[in-house]
């Protein structure tokens, strides 16, 4: 990948791997070329990148986190909460 590739030490190519994230994108690592629907090369801009698989990203083919907004799930929703709190004392409402 362009500039970052030139910073890499010389050596054998890194094999491409694609990791499916639960309820999230496809994480891509390794040496490969990416092309858009017109056959034009797409530059990921980073060594490890995430491909959208929910269809809602505004920066497709890359992920922008929109899967969380649209409630994208790759499996059945859990029957019980994933997180509990030790003691439910009042706390500040967190914000992004």
């Amino acid at each position, binding site marked *: 990948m362009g500039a970052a590739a030139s910073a890499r030490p010389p050596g054998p190519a890194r094999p491409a791997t694609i990791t499916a994230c639960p309820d999230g994108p496809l994480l891509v690592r390794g040496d490969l070329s990416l092309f858009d629907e017109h056959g034009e090369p797409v530059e990921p801009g980073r060594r490890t990148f995430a491909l959208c698989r929910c269809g809602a990203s505004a920066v497709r083919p890359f992920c922008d986190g929109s899967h969380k907004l649209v409630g994208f799930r790759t499996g059945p929703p859990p029957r019980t909460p994933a997180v509990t709190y030790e003691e439910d004392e009042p706390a500040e*409402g967190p914000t*992004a």
Partner: protein
Amino acid sequence: MTITAQPHRAAAAPMAGDQAAASRSDAPMRPMALPEPRGPVSAALMNLLTGPERAPVGDLAVATTEGLAASDDLLADDDVQLALFLMYELHYGGLDGVPDSWEWDPRLLAVRRPIEREFEGALRRTVRQPLAARDVPEALFALVGDDDGPSLSAFVERDATAEQVREILVCRSIYTLKEADPHSWAIPRLHGHAKSALVEIQADEYGGGRADRLHATIFAQTLRGAGLDDRYGAYADHVPVEVYTSMNLMSLFGLHRRLRGAIVGHLAAYEMTSSLPCRAYAAGLRRLDFGEDVADYFDEHVEADAVHEQLAARDLAGSLAEEEPDLARDILFGASACLTVDGRLWGSLREHFERGESVLRKPL
């Protein structure tokens, strides 16, 4: 306000090439100039740091003991938080005019210790302790999913004025001009998969081998493009206490090996709450006709943090919890602390703005 083009900026387009790289690094930002004291503790500290090198620390020790005793909310204590920030800054870029020997002076560390103890105590009392029902990554995603406070980024996207945006950039400058540094302290304290994942994230934060793409450097370009000063600490006197509390939280977690779970959890929560807000920030900046050089930082973080959140939650925090199960609790505490402390900071900004008030202690 006037927004001017910055002829010296390195590269407006993300992939403009290596030729423009490294024309500007973050080196000129440091060390930061000492700010004005905000009370007796920070005054005694600055007095000590700028005095003779072997001067006794007694006055600072007394001021600190009294300051801690008098503080009713340490997370909102301007004086103590600024003093702690300056003590920590000795480990980062340093303080202008202050000898480097103070960094590891055991007498200064002995004064810092009770501040840190009280600070951590206040955090443990204030921040809810989450527990993972099944595994840590799933719990982290649920934790940030529960985070439904009023959003500053949505306010920026739709309602903020250019002046309010500049105040936000000023408040971000204390951390973002050394973005990723507090989490890097954890690298030698981790092993195996967790270490590899942290380095994978940090390499991206530090530009993947391109000095002009260091996130701190991109943010410096954002500041300049918005007509602001990009020197480190330029707005140290302007920012509200919550900025220092947020920064000190990271330094406390990062500088103590004991708290390596918490700094990992902090990074995870930070990355997991960044992509969509950054998209909203970028949209708000364009609505207000800020230049592409200003929006670049936020554009970069939309895609970068969509990757980082997966790496941080699964490969970093998940691996660490598997390798050191006793740290699971602190990983989730660190994440919860990030959401609470930063929630206070950005929520406070939004409240000020909605009342039509400035959040800064003095005008820009």
